[in-house]
Structures are given as C-alpha cells and as structure tokens.
C-alpha cells in the first residue's frame, strides 16, 4: 500500500502534522464532557470570581475602564496559556514515556512534524478555551467591541509561543517531578505578572520592563486592545515579539526532542 501525494515544504510533510492534529481531535471528542470543565467551567470560575468579586472593590483602572472589562481579556489569555503549556509539556511527556511517539515515528513521520502537530494543537486548544470563556465574558457584557474577534489571533500566538516553551520541558524532563517545574517556573509567574490582573504600570519601575519581557504579557496586551477596540502600534510590536520568541524557542525545542527520541 503506497501513500498518496502530500505537501512537503522544507522537509516537513504537512500530512504528518495534520495526522497528529486529527489524533488529538479524536481523543478530545472521546472525553468532551470532562474536557468542558477545563475549557469552560474552570476558567469561567476565575472570570466570575475576579470580575464580580474584585470588580466590586476596584472602581476603575487605566483611566475610566471598569475592572471587570479590564480583567476579562487577561483571564482569557491566562486560560489559553494554561491549555498550551499543559498540552505541550504533560501531554507530550506522557506520549513520549508511554512509547506512543516511538511508534508514531515508525510511520513515515519525523520529530519536527510531531512538534509542529503538537504546537498547532496547543494553538487550537488556546483558541477553543478563548471561544468558550470569551462567550461568558460577552454574556456578562464585559467584552463588547466587535473587534473582540481578534482576541482569537492573540490566543493563536499565545498557543504557539507557550506551546514551544512547554515542548522544551517535555524534551528535558527525566521525570514528572522536574516536569512539574513548568507550573512553578512558567505558568504561575506568567499567570500573575503578565498584566492580566493589574496594569503593569503599577509595578515598581525596575520590574516594569521585566514584566513586559515575559512571553504572555504581549498576548494580554493584544487581547486587551481587541477587547476594547483600541488598537495601537504597540499591539503590532507585541505580535512581532511573540512571533520572534516562537521562532527562537521552537527550533531549540525540536532539537531537544530529537535528542530524546532519535538516538
């Protein structure tokens, strides 16, 4: 039985990337009831708790913006980040240690194609959770601009970039103890210091540029811009920064994965 024609660009067979994406979609469909809690219920808890709870205590931020309106895009991006990092670190780690990726590689598939398949799936997860939590935010009237559809673009960028970071942890971790560092070292600080819950401007001057350099901050910035329908040049720079980071991190991740899978 011979394979059918497919696109091969720069040595990457598009079909393999698609196949892994499809595998993830089939797996998600099997458990969609449980998955709903990760994609919708859990992040919606955060949105409601912070939006209504803290929103009561804080009047306005950044000159006239209601706190719930300010915080909604940040919480959506935080959920996008969690999904991407979880998929590419824990998901990939278990698929490596369980021997599944070794058997996938016995098909005409390369490590680079696996990494790209996981990355596109991480981006898909980020977009899915953005749609579900975003709908809740829209229902509460916290996101109103028609430009808000652009938040999906921010989710896509966050999914790829954070996913690439997750792959590095999956490739390097000898066990789940070291793997759990991905939450301590990456997810938790990004969750709190990326301008989601408070404007970065309130941080001490020394920390401000540091917060801007964090990989999630530009994503939150772009999402906030789209959510309020106020787009500036800084949003473009943010997008380019994220694309640039992805372009640097991904080849490193692929190299490390190759070292782990093809020896």
């Amino acid at each position, binding site marked *: *039985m*011979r*394979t*059918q024609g*497919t696109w091969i660009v720069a040595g990457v*067979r598009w*079909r*393999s990337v698609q*196949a*892994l994406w*499809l*595998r993830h979609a*089939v*797996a998600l469909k*099997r*458990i969609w009831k449980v998955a709903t809690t990760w994609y919708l219920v859990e992040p919606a808890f955060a949105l409601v708790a912070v939006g209504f709870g803290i929103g009561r205590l804080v009047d306005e931020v950044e000159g006239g913006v209601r706190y719930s309106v300010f915080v909604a895009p940040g919480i959506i991006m935080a959920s996008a980040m969690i999904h991407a990092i979880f998929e590419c670190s824990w998901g990939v780690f278990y698929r490596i240690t*369980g*021997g*599944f*990726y*070794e*058997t*996938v*590689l*016995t*098909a*005409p*598939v*390369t490590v680079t194609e696996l990494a790209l398949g996981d990355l596109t799936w991480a981006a898909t997860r980020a977009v899915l959770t953005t749609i579900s939590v975003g709908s809740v935010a829209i229902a509460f009237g916290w996101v109103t601009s028609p430009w808000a559809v652009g938040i999906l673009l921010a989710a896509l960028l966050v999914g790829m970039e954070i996913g690439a970071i997750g792959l590095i942890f999956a490739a390097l971790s000898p066990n789940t103890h070291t793997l759990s560092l991905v939450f301590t070292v990456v997810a938790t600080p990004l969750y709190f210091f990326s301008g989601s819950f408070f404007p970065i401007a309130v941080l001490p001057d020394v920390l401000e540029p540091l917060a801007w350099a964090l990989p999630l901050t530009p994503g939150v910035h772009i999402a906030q811009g789209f959510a309020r329908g106020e787009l500036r040049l800084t949003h473009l720079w943010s997008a380019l920064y994220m694309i640039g980071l992805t372009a640097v991190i991904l080849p490193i991740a692929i190299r490390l994965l190759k070292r782990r899978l*093809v*020896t």
Partner: protein
Amino acid sequence: MIRGRDIVKRFGPTTAVDGVTFDVMKGETYGLLGPNGAGKTTLMRLLSALSPLSSGGLVVAGLDVTRQGRAVRERLGVVTQQDGLDTDLTVRQNLETHGYFSGLSRRESRRRAAEVLAFFGLSDRAHDDIDHLSGGMKRRLAIARAFMMAPDVIILDEPTTGLDPQGRNLVWDKLAALKASGVTILMSTHYMEEAAALCDRIAIMHQGRILDEGTPDELIERHASVEVAQLRMVTDVKAEVQAALVAAGYAWREVGTMIHVAARDGQRPQVPPLEGVRVTYRPGNLEDVFLAVAGKGLGEE
C-alpha cells in the same frame, strides 16, 4: 530484502552494535537471538531508521536507511518492545490514526482497520479502551498496527516478552499466519523455543556481534551436542560432581538445580557413576547452541 554491512552503533564510549553483517531474503523469517543487552533492540532501531548508524551500510527493500529514512519507514511495519499504544483512543482508532499517519486517507484507513481487526481476531474489541485489553491482546494490536500498511517487511522486537503462555500462543498463531502470507519478518527474541518454532534462520547475538548464523537445525548440529546429559543431585554433592566433570573433560552448565553435561564430540556423555546423582538424557537444542557459542547461558548477563 535487508542487507546489513559492518553496522556499528556507538552511544558515547559504549559500542552497542559492533560490526554486524547479515542478509534477510524475501519471505524469510529471520531471528536475532540473544540475552538482554546483546544489541538486538539497537539493531532493530537502526533498521527502522529510528536511530542513525555510526558507520556501516544498511539497505532495506532496496532503500538506504541513512539517506531514505522516510521511504524505508513507508515500507516497514515495526513493533517496538513497548506496545506504544495510544491509551486515549479505542482499539479501532489506534489502527485508523496509524493508517492516517502513514498516508492513507481517512476512508482508506477505516476500511483497512476493519480488515486488519478481522485478521487479528480483534473485531469484537474494536470499540474497547486500550486499558481493558489483556497483555496478549495489546501485543496483537501492536502487531496489527504494524500491519496496517500491508508492509513488505515486519520488524518485531521481542514480540512475546512479558506475555503469559496463552498470550504467547495467540501471538505465535498470528506470526505464523503472517509468515505464511509471504511477509518478510525480522524478529528478536530471547526465547529459544520461539526462535526454533518461527524462524527460518537465526543469528546468535552477543555483546553487539553476531557470533553465528544458520537454520535452527544447522546451528544445533554445529554447536549442540547430539545428546545432553541432565544431572539431578539428590543429595548435596554438587562440588564433587563438578570436579568429576572437569576431570572427564566435559562442558557443563548449571540450570536451576540441575547440571547439563555435553561431550565435545557430541556423543552421549559418559557421566562417571556418582552417589546421589540421577542422570537422564535428552537431544541437544538451541539453548545448548547459545551456551556453546556465547560461552554462557541465555538468562545470564
């Protein structure tokens, strides 16, 4: 179908495969027999283009493994030692996704999966979770997956290791059926009976080298004594027995509580009459071959 020349694979300072040369003909079942750590798995990973050679040449189905890895993998079915099944998916979905990874369309994948499930007697488990399968069934599914693309060559790394006797028989049945269908099979094993039952030719591997190669009968004739004496000690006279055997110039090894004795000329060993020892005789087998060739038993590291 497979041609290996002076294959060497090093991991840092250790040499896992140390100059292996062998040929596997079309339709043949070729066995790599050896203990853990002999280099069998490494050699099979090299064959599947999952691992680059340090030096040497390896051609599978007319394709160079080093330069045409993807094309080689299109023609190979590989069963790794870990089943490597996708526990998030059902039995049927495992096969379908593998077909899709290998380049079949979704419709072709579905059709082929149904065929393969029927052939491997798994049709009534098609919608089961992987975790609900027995060890033998998981292994059969792993072999079924390798068969999705109707490959010319199937590579199996220790297909029955870790299975109970019933599971082993199920796997042997299917391997015999595959063999009958004309597929070229390369398998590794550390079970003598498995190699003797399934393989047309066997290579004995030890410390990264092939020590000898031939049909099971040839190897037994060449290396195993025609008759082996089995000594069972009724009382604690092991030391005396061993001393007597050394004096008589016989080769021997301990197997559990017994001592197996072989004469160098292959004739029935004339074990000196000893108090407290029962002697029985049996024909030589592949286990004796391994002992003769590698200088130690299969179970020993």
